[in-house]
């Protein structure tokens, strides 16, 4: 198990040395980059909006129900909602969700290219297939993911605002005052930095599993599952390390 993990890590590192090379044609690279930003990033916006909106609302409800002590000010609900969203949900939880959507998309797309010999076709043409296929995906997703992170933070707060506006659980004034109180700008940067690292993990790990698929449609599905599981575990591990490094 340990030996095979070390072997896989070595293979992954060698794969990355192939990926991070100068593209054969910059014009084609930028065309593909824009396409990948649209496919992996822009297409994820609806999912991010829906999930963040609902989770923001749920966090607000739970905070309101659980914070009942008269010693705790009522604006704490807004403050706690904001901190949870900024510190953990919009970066880590959202990345875990995106690992499912984007990771499986990348692994299955590249895996299908492998089993249908499209990657061999690129290699025979003398094109660095790893660089050509994977680099625009990794760069595109890493570049766009801060937008998704900030959008998730904002939509989560909007979800909480809906609860304040349309229920009697908390007043809008208290909620808005809460989300403005004791604001630490670094937490936003902390969330963005984490998301960028997680985006790299999602895109590169999924690409690795897709690129080395052997077999047919069944193996592509298995690679897709492995990609999501592995990147999720790595995201959790990286979360611990980054939190220790950035918040201590």
């Amino acid at each position: 198990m340990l030996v095979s993990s070390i072997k896989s890590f070595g293979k992954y590192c060698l794969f990355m040395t192939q990926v991070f090379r100068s593209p054969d044609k910059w014009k084609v690279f930028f065309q593909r980059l824009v396409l990948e930003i649209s496919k992996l990033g822009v297409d994820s916006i609806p999912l991010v909006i829906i999930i963040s909106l609902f989770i923001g609302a749920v966090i607000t409800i739970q905070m309101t129900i659980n914070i009942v002590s008269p010693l705790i000010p009522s604006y704490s609900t807004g403050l706690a909602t904001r901190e949870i969203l900024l510190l953990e949900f919009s970066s880590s939880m959202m990345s875990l969700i995106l690992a499912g959507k984007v990771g499986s998309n990348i692994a299955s797309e590249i895996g299908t290219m492998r089993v249908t010999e499209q990657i061999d076709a690129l290699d025979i043409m003398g094109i660095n297939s790893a660089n050509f296929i994977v680099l625009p995906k990794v760069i595109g997703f890493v570049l766009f993911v801060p937008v998704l992170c900030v959008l998730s933070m904002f939509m989560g707060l909007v979800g909480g605002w809906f609860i304040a506006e349309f229920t009697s659980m908390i007043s809008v004034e208290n909620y808005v005052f809460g989300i403005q109180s004791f604001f630490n700008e670094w937490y936003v940067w902390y969330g963005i930095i984490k998301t960028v690292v997680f985006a790299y993990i999602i895109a590169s790990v999924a690409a690795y599993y897709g690129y080395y698929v052997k077999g047919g449609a069944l193996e592509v599905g298995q690679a897709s599952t492995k990609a999501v599981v592995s990147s999720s575990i790595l995201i959790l591990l990286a979360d611990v390390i980054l939190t220790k490094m950035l918040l201590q």
Partner: protein
Amino acid sequence: MIEAKNVSKWFDGQQVLYDISATFDTGKTNLIIGQSGSGKTVFMKCLIGLLSPEVGEILYDGRKFRNMNAQEKKKLRMEIGMLFQGSALFDNETVLGNVMFPLKMFSPLSHEEQLERAHFCINRVGLVNADAKYPSEISGGMQKRVAIARAIALNPKYLFCDEPNSGLDPRTSILIDELLSDITHEYGMTTIINTHDMNSVLGIGEKIVFINKGHCDWIGNDRTIFRSTSQSLNDFVFASKLFQEVKVFLEREYEAGKEH
């Protein structure tokens, strides 16, 4: 011309190719034939450079593939066209996009000239009104034609085809064979076709290399194949009753020709 000299290949300690030597002539359709699992695909991958033989040499017009540096290999790859068994067209590109792809990546031509070249290749393989279609929207035969058009877009010196007729009906198979043969003669390419389709063997086999259990058992052409004394080749080629009858008929013709 492509030469294979004493090529041997092992996988995990098991030998799959045994000391194969063969020459593939320029301007001819060279066929590699053999049963499934005989090692012909491995041999072809060694010829292309996708696999590296442990023993032996591959020479492209006298240039040793093994001795080439990365830049020389890259340059050589631009001289190679490849037609895959499953066509290997890019799913997210249209027919025109697929044919334009090698031109966009490597050609110094302007966009208009690239378009002109792509249209020429598409017309050459007999495709009409298919430019804007995606691979999933066209038939298997049309996909093969697109793949051939893509393979010849950069005017390659060497064309490799891995089972070009697989999955095609007999009529379309013959059309694809004729197209490959015509293109080979027209552009003076060294074409190597990996096949076990007997129609191809008899139709376009200007040079035939028979691989059996990793050994090169016989080298000849579509005329000499009927007079071969190789038992393994006869077992392979004349496995069906139809071809046994064809053999008898052609042998009679041959004998009659000798008498007169």
